[in-house]
């Protein structure tokens, strides 16, 4: 069965195995507790990174470790748990890859500052969220933004967008895939790659 969901909220109901249910909970937890920390985490990880791509690799490793650990036991609160794993990740790198961060990783004080930062609001009222989204979309390159707006707001398919814009479907799809990655960066860090570079 081709289980394309009618809308994007339904996906969760489609997978069936017992394992998948656990994964759904894990996904909820990850999105709710971990992703809002991303901006601070990136800042923290960047001290042990050699390049931009390296930061992203560390982020990926971190999320993987965090979720692997959280499958055993869901930590509460999540914040110190996540930062402890981040710190261990950096220490491991120093040991195994001789990446010497310009800031010492052992500096727990700084780590604590990060941990004590007030957590981002989790209860965002719809209007705030809407503004945030609008602001985020505003930061996207025009074509990516247009593609996302047409997809989301007007409910057009990739094919339909391509038709209207007189562009190839490949191109539209690329704008959407690039756009969603940039959107995630902006929403979770307040800035996208392209912005940070300039």
């Amino acid at each position, binding site marked *: 069965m081709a289980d394309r*969901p009618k*809308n994007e909220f339904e996906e969760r109901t489609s997978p069936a195995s017992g394992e998948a249910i656990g994964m759904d909970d894990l996904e909820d937890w990850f999105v709710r507790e971990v992703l809002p920390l991303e901006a601070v985490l990136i800042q923290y990880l960047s001290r042990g990174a050699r390049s931009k791509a390296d930061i*992203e*690799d560390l982020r990926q490793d971190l*999320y993987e470790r965090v979720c692997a650990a959280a499958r055993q036991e869901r930590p509460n609160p999540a914040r110190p748990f996540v930062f402890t794993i981040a710190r261990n990740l950096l220490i491991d790198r120093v040991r195994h890859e001789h990446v010497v961060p310009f800031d010492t990783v052992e500096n727990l004080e700084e780590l604590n500052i990060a941990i004590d930062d007030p957590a981002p609001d989790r209860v965002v009222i*719809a209007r705030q969220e809407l503004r945030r989204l609008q*602001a985020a979309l505003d930061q996207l390159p025009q074509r990516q*933004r247009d593609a996302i*707006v047409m997809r989301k707001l007007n409910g057009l398919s990739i094919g339909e967008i391509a038709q209207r814009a007189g562009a190839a479907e490949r191109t539209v*799809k690329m704008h959407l895939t690039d756009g969603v990655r940039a959107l995630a960066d902006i929403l979770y860090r307040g800035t996208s790659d392209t912005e940070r570079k300039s």
Partner: protein
Amino acid sequence: MTGPAANPSQSVGRAGITDERASDFLIRRYDLEGWNEADQAELDSWLEESLANRTAYWRLKAAWTRANRLDALRPMGWNTTLAARQFPKLGLRLATAAVLVALLGSAIWYTGQQPASRTFATAVGERSNLQLPDGSRVELTTNTTVRVSAGAMDRKVWLDKGEAFFRVVHNDRRPFVIHALDFKVVDLGTEFSVRRDANRIEVMVLKGSVRIDPPAGGDQYRPVRLIAGELAVADNHSISVTRKSGTEMADALSWRSGILVFRGTPLGEVAAQFNRYNSEKIVIDDPDVARLTISARLPATDIDAFARVAKNFIGLKVERSSNEVHLARTGK
């Protein structure tokens, strides 16, 4: 098969590759067409591969799902002024709402007939972005009114009041013309701003070039062509063109992001700028105070921030009365 396109502009690490793959799955998965069982199986097995793949997918999916909220914009738009009413103090840009309005309005444009003009306006303190279906963009600053009409043969904007920035998708066969006072500003492939006061206009060109056609009849000059980096001030009798540095132009256009930039600017002028954007007015009675200069970047609609700067950094006495902020020297 539609693999993710590599982005040549930046080096991509392991995570970058994972993210590209995840975004490719995600966009296809939620497209309205063409997702099939085989695709689902491919996604499932990719997710099975590692938690790293899963977290990458979850992360992008969460962002993508958040964008569903844009739905809430649907009922807004037509009435009032482009949904920009609830413009927050620190100035988020509401381009998205405008994009929506433009898309909703696109039906009119696509019919190919000369439609009646549509009016868009911002109140004091508002800003608004219009996207026209041809891809051109018009950004309105505070207290600005434009009428827009697009036919098969031409595109016209009447700047009835205020200032706007234009990013025009140039089309030789469908000229884009701004009417301000009795002037015409003709796009020649470009980004530029047009500001209109009581009896003169200012045109600043960021990219490309424009042509200014003076009012027909009378004692005036011939059409003038402006290129990037030039600012023209034109009234019925004369036009002056000066060159601006990139910084000066960026300062002058900083309203596009809700910011006013001052560099050694006399307070009198600062007050005038702020007063364009706010219904609460800054009043400086003492000419000596008006001559004091200030360098700052301030949110255009944040009178409080300006008042704090005046008090704490310049040491002025700030008194607020009904809808006015009076600046004076202390001890007077």
